[in-house]
């Protein structure tokens, strides 16, 4: 038997065992609070047409209890943090004596915001994440101290702003002035980092639906961030999750809030264009 026949046999065995062992994403529908039907699977955006047909929320890759917990705000522990942010929203801070509510109407006025972030900011001449925009408000308008990028207070506020966009489709712009940042993010997505030489794509594009040890690999979509993780019982930021993934390739990570992770966030968000905003979602 030559090498190529061996490979063919191997691939055959592999295909058989994969389809038998795991059913892939769960066949289920997410209806939020018995009223809002969420888009958790949809046609892939045009820029992904070469690599996949369908984009699927990480919700489908979790167990039945985790999926149910996210469907009801009373069961979703992430909503406790949203309530905490609601208090912060109304509380004045900084030298200007202002709160978020001093300039913005109710939190519902933020509906649609999370869906389009990260977003090009003309005045700054750069792509900004929602965290950066919040800190700009705090420092420039409120005269308050910036919040820690991945910290609880910040992520609570991101969760609050995300929560009022739930059910709206992710729709980040990837063209115009954001394009070069998006290209940089795409390059990072396919770069095999660390001693294990793994890229985002190795797991989340080529192997979603497969098990890696006890983990059911998803597409790595970020429409559900901030994510309440059952393993650490708190809200987790996109950049903290990126950092964890890069660390697990035995690599020197990038820092949360770094230009690299901003670019990667824009690119990964764009891979989920069309999925509903789910944050705060629940994952394991």
């Amino acid at each position, binding site marked *: 038997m030559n090498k190529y026949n061996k490979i063919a046999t191997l691939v055959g065995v592999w295909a058989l065992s994969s389809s038998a062992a795991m059913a892939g994403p769960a066949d289920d529908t997410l209806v939020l609070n018995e009223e809002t039907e969420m888009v958790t699977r949809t046609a892939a955006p045009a820029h992904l047409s070469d690599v996949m047909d369908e984009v699927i929320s990480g919700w489908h890759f979790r167990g039945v209890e985790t999926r149910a917990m996210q469907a009801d705000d009373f069961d979703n522990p992430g909503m406790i943090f949203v309530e905490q942010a609601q208090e912060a929203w109304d509380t004045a801070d900084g030298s200007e004596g202002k709160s978020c509510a001093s300039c913005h109407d109710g939190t519902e006025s933020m509906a649609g915001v999370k869906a389009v972030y990260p977003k090009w900011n003309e005045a700054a001449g750069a792509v900004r994440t929602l965290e950066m925009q919040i800190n700009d408000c705090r420092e420039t308008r409120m005269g308050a101290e910036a919040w820690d990028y991945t910290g609880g207070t910040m992520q609570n506020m991101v969760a609050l702003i995300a929560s009022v966009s739930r059910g709206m489709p992710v729709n980040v712009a990837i063209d115009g002035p954001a394009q070069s940042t998006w290209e940089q993010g795409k390059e990072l997505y396919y770069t095999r980092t660390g001693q294990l030489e793994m890229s985002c794509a190795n797991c989340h594009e080529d192997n979603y639906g497969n*098990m890696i040890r006890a983990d059911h690999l998803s597409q790595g979509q970020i429409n559900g961030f901030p994510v309440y993780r059952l393993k650490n019982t708190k809200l987790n930021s996109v950049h903290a999750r990126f950092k964890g993934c890069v660390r697990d390739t035995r690599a020197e990570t990038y820092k949360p809030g770094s230009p690299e992770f901003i670019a990667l966030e824009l690119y990964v968000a764009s891979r989920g264009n069309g999925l509903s905003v789910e944050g705060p979602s629940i994952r394991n």
Partner: protein
Amino acid sequence: MRTRMTLALAFAVSAGMATAAEIPPTGVSYEDGAVAASLSGTPGNVDEGRKIVGSKKLGNCVACHAVSDLADVPFHGEIGPPLDGAADRWSEAELRGIVANAKMMFDGTMMPSFYKTEGFIRPGKAYTGKAADDTFGPLLSAQQIEDVVAYLSTLKE
């Protein structure tokens, strides 16, 4: 003069020993992805190899490959092909090459290279997220590779 002779002799002896005993990651010779020579010069230990394949702290091969013989280890992955019958499909030299650096045989494979120390992008210090320092070494030692190869060579159907 005598000192110089002694020095030269000592050098020859130690260099000779290094060559016979262990091939460093940068000195491995691949032919069509296979590695004929033992990396350590010492035969592999099947029981040690079995441990390395199943242990999360060592090879963690089962993270991606299922192995029926390791049914006592929970949660086998399905990223790569199952290892049952690996010894029927591959020679010892091929198995050694695949474990040491599978990319030499399968261009672009996701499989990590277990006996390689160069050519990484942003190599880290194990799983700390920090940059690699002078403790950086291959994922498995020469002897551990030989142990894994010895174990895989027992997987016949």
